């Protein structure tokens, strides 16, 4: 029972994170590209409940950050005025799902102060908003690349396992080539062949396509194994004897055996591909400024001074860890439940 609770908790967390990321425009208080040049590397705003005169407020509030004179990137709270945290505020314009314009944000505070839940980066951009919008890129990249990999793997695995002989041999040798390839260097090389500037959308789809196409080999091999064993089952042979076409056999008798593999692989590959996108962006091969992705947010930590001085810049890593743990827990659960069900 404890296991079930863990899995349910993981699934709820995943659902919650995905919803937040999908509705990033709503959950994020600010536009991810707007720079506040007066507040570079500002720490997260502290939430207070107790006011200056010691009485308790039901509604939490924040103080404005003020730069310390003669300090570099040092801030102190200005106790002049309390800015209450408000819900469902009107703010900058964004698009839901890419086409519905809206201006309501979940959280916010009164102008002119801004509430930095996760601090700001070197240009004064709100990190919390950037993590949410960055999640859209990174998680979407992971999901799409997984879909591509599994689709390719399924097709090749089925054909390879079902028809056997030279088709199988050549397909699997080809798969081994992909398994052996040092994919990071290949991707870095691909970037240098690209035209001078490609739009962020083009860069995104290119990234997804490359990550997805490189990773089809492992699912293909696993599916091939399942197809091979299913192909020689008695009921399949019997079905063939009754005149079933190859396509019917594949669709009705063999494919159902692959579902377990597909599900577990999906749950395993999504975090792997999210991390792949993060790695590429970290090395500068992903999207260009000012579009955020978890990778280029974490790339800020490549500078020693940022790594040591501004701890809130690690926040995207927390999001990455949560998503990965969630998916891996679910993958484990699927694996175990289907394992116990089959022979």
């Amino acid at each position, binding site marked *: 029972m404890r296991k079930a609770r863990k899995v349910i908790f993981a699934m709820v967390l995943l659902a919650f994170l995905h919803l937040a990321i999908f509705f990033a425009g709503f959950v994020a208080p600010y536009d991810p*590209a707007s*720079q506040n*040049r007066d507040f*570079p590397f500002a720490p997260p705003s502290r939430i207070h409940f107790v006011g200056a005169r010691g009485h308790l407020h039901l509604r939490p509030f924040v103080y404005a950050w003020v730069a310390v004179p003669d300090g*570099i*990137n040092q801030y102190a709270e200005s106790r002049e005025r309390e800015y209450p945290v408000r819900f469902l505020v009107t703010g900058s314009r964004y698009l839901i799902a890419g086409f519905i314009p809206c201006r309501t944000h979940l959280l916010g505070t009164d102008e002119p102060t801004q509430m930095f839940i996760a601090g700001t980066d*070197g*240009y*004064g951009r709100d990190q919390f908003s950037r993590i949410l919008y960055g999640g859209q890129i990174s998680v979407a990249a992971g999901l799409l690349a997984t879909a591509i990999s599994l689709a390719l793997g399924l097709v090749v695995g089925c054909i390879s396992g079902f028809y056997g002989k030279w088709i199988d041999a050549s397909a699997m040798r080809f798969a081994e080539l992909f398994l052996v390839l040092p994919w990071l260097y290949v991707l870095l090389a691909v970037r*240098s062949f690209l035209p*001078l*500037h490609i739009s962020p959308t083009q860069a995104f789809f290119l990234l997804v396509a490359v990550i997805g196409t490189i990773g089809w080999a492992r699912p293909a091999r696993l599916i091939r194994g399942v197809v091979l064993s299913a192909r020689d089952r008695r009921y399949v042979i019997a079905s063939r004897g009754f005149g079933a076409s190859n396509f019917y056999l594949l669709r009705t008798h063999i494919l159902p055996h692959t579902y377990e593999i597909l599900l577990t692989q999906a749950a395993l590959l999504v975090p792997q591909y999210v991390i792949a996108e993060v790695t590429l962006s970290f090395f*500068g091969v992903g999207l*260009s*400024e*000012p579009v955020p992705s978890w990778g280029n947010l974490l790339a800020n930590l490549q*500078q*020693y*001074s*940022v790594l*040591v*001085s501004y701890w809130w810049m690690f926040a995207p890593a927390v999001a990455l860890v949560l998503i990965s743990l969630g998916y891996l827990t679910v993958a484990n659960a699927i694996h175990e439940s289907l394992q116990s069900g089959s022979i």
Partner: protein
Amino acid sequence: MRQLGRYLTFFLAGCLGCFASVTPQTLQRGEEVQTSDNEVGHYGGTLVVGQRSEPKTLNPVVAADGPSREVIGRMMADLIHINRASQQTEPALAKSWTMSKDGRTFMVKLRHGLRFSDGQPFSADDVVFSFQVYLDEKVHSPQRDLLIVGGKPIEVQKVDQYTVRFTLAQPYAAAERIFDSLAIMPRHLLEQPYKDEKFAQSWTLTTLPAQIAGMGPFRLKEYVAGQKLVLERNPYYWKVDSGKNRLPYLDEMAFLFTGNEDAQVIRFQAGDTDIISRVGAENYTLLSKDSTHGIEMFDLGPSLEYNFLVFNLNDLKGKNLDKIAAKQAWFSDLKFRQAVSLAIDRQSIIKLVYSGRGAALWGNVSPSNKLWVDQTLPHPARSVDQAHALLQSAGFSWRSDGQLVDRQGQAVEFSIIASSSNAQRSKMATLIQDDLSKLGMNVHVVPLEFKAVLDRVFQTYDYEASIMALGGGDADPNPEMNVWLSSGGTHLWHLSEAKPTTEWEAQIDQLMQKQMVELKYKDRKRLYDQVQEIIAANDPFIFLATPDILVGAKKNLANFKPAILDPNTLWNVEQLYFSPGSGGASGGRP
């Protein structure tokens, strides 16, 4: 038993030999040393310095990269040296010189009785030999271009054992400054390889120390590939302090190959190195806050280099770059460039990229170059409204979504390339991207590997705009000739011009040529001021900012006088010493 005793003795002697430092030679009669007016110090210690990449060679004629030149500069000496603190020339191996009235002949008198680091005597033969090598076209020395005045190479003639005559094809204002950092090499070691046409292969990193000799404060002791390069005191060095003690004070100098700037900072903080040079502003702040490690940081004010945004105005005929050629219609419009310059927030660049440690620039001469900067140049404040007005008067307009379009209705969209390894320039590009979006321009930032940037800017011209930096070598305008002459190799906005394509470029050509032969400073300044004004009026580069020179050293390192000119921290290495009793030298850490 006796055998064993003998072996033991040799072994111990060997060990002691390793640890014994080279003692300075006593002053000889007739040796014309130079007296240095620094604070008298104590002998001893090893100075440890980090380098971001390994040197490639120890050959002064072939070396082109920074780390090699840093090491070679400590082992060699020149005839006339530019004092990095005063920025004026002073005698070095030449004790005096006279210039003829027409400014074309230099008679240089060398110091008597000096010796190379291997004990061999120094004379005019070595000077003549060195210049022969520098001027030899087959050797391809990068310094050869510096020695071509008026289209002809300098002529060098030996007059007697200690006198050399240099003849120039035309008078040259800063003739003395040419000699700075031109290392005088030993004829007795290098003449044979030169005659055998093997000069370029001499003095590599694996050459034995006994085969390398120079007139500098240190000589090569050992090189461990991938780790360090160690120099030891030159016992015959020709400078003494006011107490007649032969310099340098330091026993040894070690260059550690530490890696990139962040790695250097970590090692400096840990105490592994004694000096750190040219750190970025953020690391400077980090190190300044650190009071536990006995280090002290120095902000020397703005450097002499200038960072700028350059638009591709090259002639692209026949290069299959039609998209870029179409955009040149915008870039070549002066009002477009002026609008871009007005919209850029230079103060934010100083604050966010340099943490306030820098100066905004509207011209190529840094405000710290007090001798040559034109004080009357205007510094227009940032104004997006004025930029809007300029663009409107140039025929641009805005769509309803705010996008800027030109007369033909084409959306104004271009990319800025910058070196990905230089975080500061990439940051500047991002800030400019945001600034220009207020004008409705759609700007892309494309970080590329440094070599790729150089390739596109210098060879293929396949770029639209780029952020680069030039300058910093010397305060004198002459090294800038390459940038401002239409035929110059770093005339970046329009390379390979057979003739100047615009009226103002022709004017700059004339003025720069004139100031080069003008002998009086006042006249040169007047001419160079005019050049600066023409540049400001025509914006071939959109000047952005210059960083401060930020260096640091251990508190117990005395006589540390960092300067704006390169090499910022090591130019007076012979005067440096460790004050005893305050933690002592970091010696014992070669």
